[in-house]
């Protein structure tokens, strides 16, 4: 088992090095291509032309961006120049708040829908229609009604994380083993105790699965939402750096989005393990 982890780690590092190597080779400056007279003149006219490389940034340049940003993640120099940790913090705060609101709505509603076959059927058409709507499609409505770009971002996160949660909670609650419900019935357990001590723990693994999916989607959506509404956040950062044509920074930000997304998923993976029971 240990040696397997070790081997896998070794191969991962190897793959990474091959990738960086290939990237480096592909972005090497082309020999003497810029030496023709007309181009040199043009370059001189453009001023900074001499240092401009062929296009896609080489790994070394991106590495420099990593070092610059990670060495000082918390600086704040006005609205368009903030440290990466502050940008990620803004995004995480939006995701956290939207997700939390979704939990507040989805848990009781999911319980009600899961416990009552009547409500299950009554709500089903709405859920089925609302679920496939891209969360960004809500943005104009949100901006018009809420009149605040920040609140609209939170609303978009709320609306995109609620459906997977709602569906999983309802399903988890509805498929609690009949035997356990019968035990609770023969013991005349009151509804509140039954909900918290029998149904909730029985459905917890399914509920956490729903939350994990929701969190994944919310993190996907926040980047797009922030590109749209602007101001702060990692999505806005990416868009801003694109407008600056600073591709190394864009690549850096993309990597950060991936890392934070992975960490979020790991947290929910842990929580899931915590509530999973062995039969």
């Amino acid at each position, binding site marked *: 088992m240990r040696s397997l982890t070790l081997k896998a780690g070794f191969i991962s590092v190897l793959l990474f090095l091959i990738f960086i190597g290939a990237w480096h080779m592909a972005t090497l400056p082309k020999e003497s291509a810029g030496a023709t007279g007309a181009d040199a003149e043009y370059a001189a006219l453009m001023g900074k032309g001499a240092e401009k490389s062929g296009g896609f940034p080489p790994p070394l340049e991106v590495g420099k961006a990593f070092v610059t940003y990670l060495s000082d993640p918390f600086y704040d120099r006005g609205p368009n120049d903030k440290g990466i940790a502050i940008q990620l913090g803004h995004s995480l705060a939006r995701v956290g708040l939207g997700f939390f609101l979704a939990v507040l709505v989805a848990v009781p509603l999911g319980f009600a829908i899961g416990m009552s076959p009547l409500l299950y059927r009554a709500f089903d058409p709405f859920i089925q229609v609302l679920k496939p709507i891209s969360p960004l499609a809500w943005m104009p409505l949100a901006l018009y009604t809420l009149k605040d770009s920040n609140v609209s971002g939170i609303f978009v996160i709320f609306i995109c994380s609620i459906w997977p949660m709602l569906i999983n909670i309802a399903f988890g609650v509805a498929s609690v083993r009949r035997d356990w419900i019968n*035990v609770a019935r023969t*013991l*005349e357990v009151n509804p509140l105790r039954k909900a918290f001590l029998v149904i909730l723990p*029985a459905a917890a693994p399914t509920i956490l699965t729903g939350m994990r999916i929701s969190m994944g989607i919310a993190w996907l959506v926040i980047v797009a939402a922030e590109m749209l509404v602007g101001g702060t956040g990692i999505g806005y950062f990416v868009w801003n750096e694109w407008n600056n044509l600073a591709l190394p920074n864009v690549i850096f930000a993309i990597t950060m989005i991936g890392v934070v997304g992975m960490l979020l998923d790991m947290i929910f993976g842990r929580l899931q393990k915590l509530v999973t*029971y*062995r039969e």
Partner: protein
Amino acid sequence: MSGHFLQVEALQKVYPAQGGGTNAPVFEDIHFHIDRGEFVCIIGHSGCGKTTILNVLAGLEEATAGDAFMDGREVRGPSLDRGVVFQSHALMPWMSVLGNVAFAVKSKWPDWSKEKINEHCTGYLEMVGLGHAIHKKPAELSGGMKQRVGIARAFAIQPKMLLLDEPFGALDALTRGTIQDELLKIVQATHQTVFMITHDVDEAILLADKILLMSNGPHAKIAEIVEVTMPRDRTRAGIHHDPQYYLIRNHLVDFLVNRSKTYAGVEAEMFHDAKNPPVVRPGLEEERTPILKQVINH
């Protein structure tokens, strides 16, 4: 109302058919009674509705017609007065063994302190020989141990009646024997009133005072009531030395193999009174053929 502890009258269950309409009743005209402190087993082929009868008594299912009264009150919905041991043990896997029993005890006595509940539960878990495993999770226990927890949970709420739905059906023969012995001891000590479903003829003879024999479904009825006339202090080791044992056993097997089919439909109506199914005591030889006698008497 008669003075019996549990009285079942004219119970019938009809399940709706698949494409609307109704099927033939699974069972009908079920009459029987259980006195306080009696251990009653019910035997019959699969599909005769034994589990449905038990669920009706537990209050988990409703009969289509007929009534059940316990202690002078009609059985309506589940109640803490009736403890149920489920076929599949039905322990909550996220609770410890102690937690499972404590959940039941707390439901019965919500005002008890934590210490009192734990002490009470530990006592019952020790009674079924699980004193050493109270902090384990059900997943860490063997099938037999899980079923013991289920029995401890049912006994711990001190119900007026215990309902056992084939509790040992999923266990291997050796484990089954040990737990039967334990159950026998506990029941003899507590004089618990028990209604139990079983497929195992030997188990029924070992444990029961009365055995209800059900005919095959649909239209299943209680065909006979067999009284186990052997003394109450039976043991699994000694029971087969009793001369009555084989007489009773042969009678039961005979019924299941040959006669369980004939107590439904037209034939049954000719010679069978479902309200007062014949009580037989095959252990005492002179009464071995009561049905023929009854027919002659009519």
